[in-house]
């Protein structure tokens, strides 16, 4: 069996997911990667799938905050992503990380917004330091 390119795999999976056949395609992908001993490429393939899905209007991303997002803030983040990407649907994974102190970090395929307090403090410490 010829080795499929990562792009071909990602495109196929993205198309199947858009068509709504998620369970089947995920199993297919897992089986294929195990069979071809390419499980190490999983994270890269997922990133590619997310990229193709975002191009098709289905953006998935990770939101990092110091505490749990309220319904209002989650809505604000989704609205922000839609406005920035033109996405029709937004799927968010929420990550709680107290080290960010406050604010929000939004990571979506191809771009990232880091508006956390920890980032601002790092910028303060590094950008204004005299060389």
């Amino acid at each position, binding site marked *: 069996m010829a080795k499929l390119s990562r792009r071909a795999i990602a495109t196929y999976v993205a198309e199947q997911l858009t068509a709504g056949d998620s369970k089947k395609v995920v199993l297919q992908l897992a089986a294929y990667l195990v069979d071809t001993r390419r499980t190490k490429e999983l994270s890269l393939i997922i990133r590619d799938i997310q990229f193709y899905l975002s191009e098709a209007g289905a953006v998935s991303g990770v939101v990092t905050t110091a505490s749990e997002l*309220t319904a209002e803030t989650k809505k604000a*983040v989704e609205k*922000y992503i839609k406005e920035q990407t033109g996405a029709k649907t937004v799927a968010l994974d929420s990550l709680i990380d107290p080290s960010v102190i*406050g604010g929000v970090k939004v990571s979506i395929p191809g771009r990232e*917004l880091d508006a956390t307090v920890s980032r601002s403090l790092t910028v303060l*410490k590094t950008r204004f330091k005299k060389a």
Partner: protein
Amino acid sequence: MKQVDERQDAIEAAAKAAIAAQASAAESKEEVEALMAKARSEAAEIVDTAKLEASQMLTSSEEKARTTAEKIAAEAKANVEKSIEAAKRELHDETLELIALATEKVIHTKLDKKADAALIVSALKDSK
């Protein structure tokens, strides 16, 4: 009589010789004086030249010493300025660290969920 004449001749010859010797002595004296004058002039010239050279050497040494002193002073000044600049930079960076640390401590205690939510909404609006 002959003897008298011979004596007369001898006296005249002696007188002529004396005059010639006197003239020769005078001439020699002038020559000596001229030589002495020339020697004094040359000596004075040598002394003047030596004085001038000594003066020039002194001036040159003073110039070199001044240049060296100015160079040392300039280097010392540059080193001091460099040290001051480094100290200022260090102080500036330490102040930044302290500000960041203090801000972090204050935010940790002051930023509740409501304030954080407002901060998130504000940040999203600002980044549009």
